[in-house]
């Protein structure tokens, strides 16, 4: 629907990913007897965050992202985030990556749903941006990339009308439709019910521009108010808060999109108890996607901006686990229900035959029925040329 949705989806999901990774990296066991090693870990944590943020805000990548386009398929977007999560020496197993993605998507779904006004999605995005800026405050080169992104967001989104923001919101809600994964931190805070649905309070401040429900005013044909009446609104509303800042700096007022994790609040997800409708939903995405070329372009730009990172040592010190123990992680992978598999496209950013073959296969997946073999299709030519140049 709205062709302006993808940048907001990417930036907010990316922001949530960074919050989670930051929390997990801090929570990784630091051996008490090796102070030196603890410092090394602190430095590496910052390096991991910097590497991911640098990739996220890569100029070419963002150029591609900000072009007007339809939202990516869930498959393609998940692949983009897989690559992003591996843009540093950090490694995540399949189960941890799945959990990371579940948390990111449910968090942003919650933020979109609870936004008082559709326009407030931009404030949520600025909350994520503000936090990202803070992560890289010591690195001027990345900081300037982040500032540039702020400017683009402001330029493109601040002129949009409320109706256009509502269309963006509706597009996002279709993307998140039927996702009811239960998140421990949400359940504990009572913002999510045990059936996976979010709590929508009928209390609290009304959005900016809205009045507290209750007043009826009736007018004569000359415009004079002739009668007033009150009705019980069935809720417990208070006046709107002041409006948050839509500029590069300033208080955003809205708390949605700020970091809700801390070292002491680990997150778990529960896969059970969700309805069959989630399986139904995957059917919607299997129709041939005529816009797949744009998705491939974005992936190529993303890979072009990556240096292949190889861990300098073979010990698993840089593997991040989103579960409490390795056993739990293994268990989660085995027991993950079929309908929740993300069907990630595996891409290796290496110059070898395997890469081209892999890409041929991906292009084959995106092919519409009846088209000739990938090598002769113009769709994939420029992508292959880009790969050869790596």
């Amino acid at each position, binding site marked *: *629907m*709205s*062709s*302006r949705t993808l940048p907001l989806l990417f930036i907010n999901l990316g922001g949530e990913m960074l919050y989670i990774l930051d929390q997990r990296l801090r929570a990784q066991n630091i051996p008490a007897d090796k102070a030196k090693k603890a410092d090394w870990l602190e430095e590496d944590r910052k390096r991991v965050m910097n590497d991911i943020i640098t990739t996220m805000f890569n100029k070419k990548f963002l150029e591609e992202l900000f072009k*007007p*386009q*339809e939202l990516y398929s869930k498959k393609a977007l998940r692949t983009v985030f897989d690559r992003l999560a591996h843009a540093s020496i950090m490694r995540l197993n399949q189960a941890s990556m799945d959990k990371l993605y579940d948390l990111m998507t449910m968090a942003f779904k919650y933020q979109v*749903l609870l936004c*008082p*006004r*559709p326009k407030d999605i931009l404030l949520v995005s600025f909350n994520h941006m503000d936090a990202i800026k803070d992560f890289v405050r010591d690195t001027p080169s990345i900081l300037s990339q982040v500032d540039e992104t702020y400017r683009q967001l402001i330029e493109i989104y601040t002129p949009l*009308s*409320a*109706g*256009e923001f*509502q*269309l963006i*919101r*509706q597009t996002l*809600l*279709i993307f998140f*439709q*039927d996702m*009811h994964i239960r998140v421990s931190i949400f359940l504990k805070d009572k913002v999510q*019910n045990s059936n996976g*649905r*979010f*709590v*929508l309070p*009928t209390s609290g401040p*009304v*959005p900016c*521009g*809205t*009045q*507290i*429900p*209750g*007043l*009826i*005013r*009736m*007018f*004569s*044909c000359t*415009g004079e108010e002739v*009668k007033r*009446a009150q009705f*019980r*609104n*069935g*809720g417990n*509303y208070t006046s709107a808060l002041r409006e948050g800042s839509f500029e590069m700096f300033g208080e955003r007022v809205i708390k949605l999109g700020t970091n809700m994790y801390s070292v002491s609040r680990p997150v778990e997800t529960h896969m059970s108890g969700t*309805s069959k*409708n989630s399986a*139904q939903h995957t059917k*919607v*995405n299997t*129709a041939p*996607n005529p816009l797949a070329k744009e998705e491939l372009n974005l992936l190529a730009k993303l890979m072009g901006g990556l240096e292949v990172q190889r861990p300098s040592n073979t010990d698993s010190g840089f593997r991040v686990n989103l579960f409490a123990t390795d056993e739990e992680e293994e268990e989660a992978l085995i027991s993950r229900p079929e309908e929740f598999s993300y069907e990630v496209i595996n891409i290796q950013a290496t110059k070898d035959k395997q890469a081209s073959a892999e890409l041929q296969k991906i292009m084959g997946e995106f092919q519409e029925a009846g088209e000739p073999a990938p090598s002769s299709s113009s769709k994939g030519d420029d992508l292959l040329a880009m790969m050869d140049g790596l």
Partner: protein
Amino acid sequence: MYHKEKSIQIKSSASALYNNLSVLRIAPRCLTYFTVVHANVVNMVSASWDGLNYSHRQLQSKEGNVATSSSLIMQAAWCVLPSRDLLVLTSQKGIQMYESDGSIMVYWHALDTPETPTAQAVFARGIAAVREKYICVGTSTGSVLVFDVPAKGSNITLSEVLEEHKEPITDMASECSGSLECIADLVSADDSGLLCVWKSGEDFQLLNKIPGFDVSCSSVKLWKGTVAAGYGTGQIRLYEGVTGILYAEVNAHARWIYSLDIAPFTGLLLSAAEDSLVRVWHLSLTPETNSVEIEHMYNECVTDTQICGAKFCDGDGYAFAVTGYDLSEIIRYTQA
């Protein structure tokens, strides 16, 4: 005033779209049809009045020759004309019209979609049947397409394009009282809140333009010449259609209104919003003062649900039905 009845299950959940519920009552067959949009699919359920039989059908958005499409549907609504009922679907690619049971597509109109996506989204939204033979559909450019519908068959033609709105059309409504005395036949609303009031005919005539002050109007109804409009700020306003005189302003909801409906025989008004609330009001016309009064009657909270569709199931407003984002059921209420 109302109590909850047994819900009707639907095959997939409702998407967050304005006016995402359409109801068609078929008295001779003691059936009611419901449609709810889920992304690129329309869920149709036919429910027998004795509550014993339900049958389901799903329609996908089509585009000419291509069998299936990922084009998202913005709205689905029945158009009741004297000679026939048609089910109209509006999507990102165009407008489809089906026989009322969804069995056969009788007409397809493609929108001009650019090769590469532009900043401005392209779609059709806003559906109304007007007088004996017109079906009007709005678009994202603000145009209103007027289709001429014959009593039978598929020889539907585009008879006129009305260009008054500059912002995407959100909703449209035709005079629902059944009275032939009303001058205004159609009202169209857009994202800037502008309301245009029209008289139908070979050439549609613009009777009035009521400005919106940049507050989006997401749902609109026309009854006995009165325009009832629901806005993104949660307000409902009642206007005299032809003159534009404001009768009443209600701070009705704490969030964006998604659906309004009027029961033409009793003047009951139904409003539903993202704030989880459905409210029932009563409109009364006082001929002496030539004004319309609105009175609040009832609230229903659909817990933890952002409501996207609410319609009366009959002309008296004895029963109404509600859909919500991510809900795979149509919730029904009847008067106690």
